[in-house]
């Protein structure tokens, strides 16, 4: 009995060593995770009350837009895509010398945390928002004026 206790006692420093190594290697997981990229699909849409109808390139999004807004024209101006790494910013140009900046900050189980900023031509943030998006879901950022209407930016993390 006495010898068994001493043998167990000798194991303790070994377990300590292993735990310390785990503690040292713990942050490695987040470092590896930081290398993951997030695929982003953006659609820049011009919406206005003027003749022109609905751009067929909008696909299924067109019906959702018509259910949400009362504009008569929806035109797809641009559809940039990017794959930024976590905590790295990705930018796309917008009409009017504006820029769209998206920074993925976390991903977990098919859900993504994004910081989205629309920057004016002077570099000021017109809107700065943080959203959580499920894979395949779309969030709209709209309102910046363009020509006789507004811009609507659809941001999707494709499945």
């Amino acid at each position, binding site marked *: 009995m006495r*010898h068994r206790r001493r043998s167990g006692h000798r194991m303790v420093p070994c377990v300590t060593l292993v735990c310390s190594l785990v503690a040292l290697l713990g942050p490695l997981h987040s470092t590896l995770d930081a290398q993951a990229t997030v695929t982003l699909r953006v659609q820049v849409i011009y919406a206005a009350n003027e003749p022109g109808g609905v751009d067929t390139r909008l696909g299924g999004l067109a019906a*959702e837009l018509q259910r949400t807004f009362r504009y008569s024209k929806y035109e797809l101006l641009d559809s940039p895509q990017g794959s930024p790494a976590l905590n790295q910013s990705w930018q796309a140009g917008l009409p009017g010398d504006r820029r769209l900046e998206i920074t993925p900050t976390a991903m977990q189980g098919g859900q993504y945390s994004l910081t989205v900023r629309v920057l004016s031509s002077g570099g000021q943030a017109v809107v700065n928002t943080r959203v959580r998006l499920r894979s395949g879901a779309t969030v709209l950022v709209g309102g910046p004026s363009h020509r006789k209407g507004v811009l609507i930016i659809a941001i999707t993390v494709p499945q």
Partner: protein
Amino acid sequence: MPHWVHMATGRGRRLAAYAAEELAPAERARVEADLRACPACRREAEAYRLVSGTLRTQPLVRMAPEQAATFWAGVERRVRPDTTALARPARPALRELFWDYPRLSLASAVAAVILVVGLTLGRMEVWSPWSPTAPNGVEVVSIEGGEDAPVMVFQAPGSSLKVIWVFEKPTS
């Protein structure tokens, strides 16, 4: 095997037990095999043996009653709290803390692991409340408009789209 490996695996205590002849025969044989391969361990075991032997061979000291009376008075005088010897707290060396209190060091390591795991998961936002029940899969966590550009979040009835709308002044 290097001497420090012996110490890291808790064999310092075993050496002391070996020198004090407190080990079982099988354990004693294992220690002797280790000693043959580790000169530093042999020196350490010899030092333990010397101390152990000295303590066991010293004769008992007997004092006369008058010597005993002055002896205890002297002890009490020296252990008073205002003496300089007690002004310095006794601090164990780091090595003593690690080797002699392995459970303490184990608890520290476990606490470090929990701290690191907590920080890592916190950074990954595992603790933050995701909303898997959001019907459209979109949750607006925070929103901030620019100067003179108020913003609002809405979702039209019958639509699955969540909209962040900026009330920007029209450009002329």
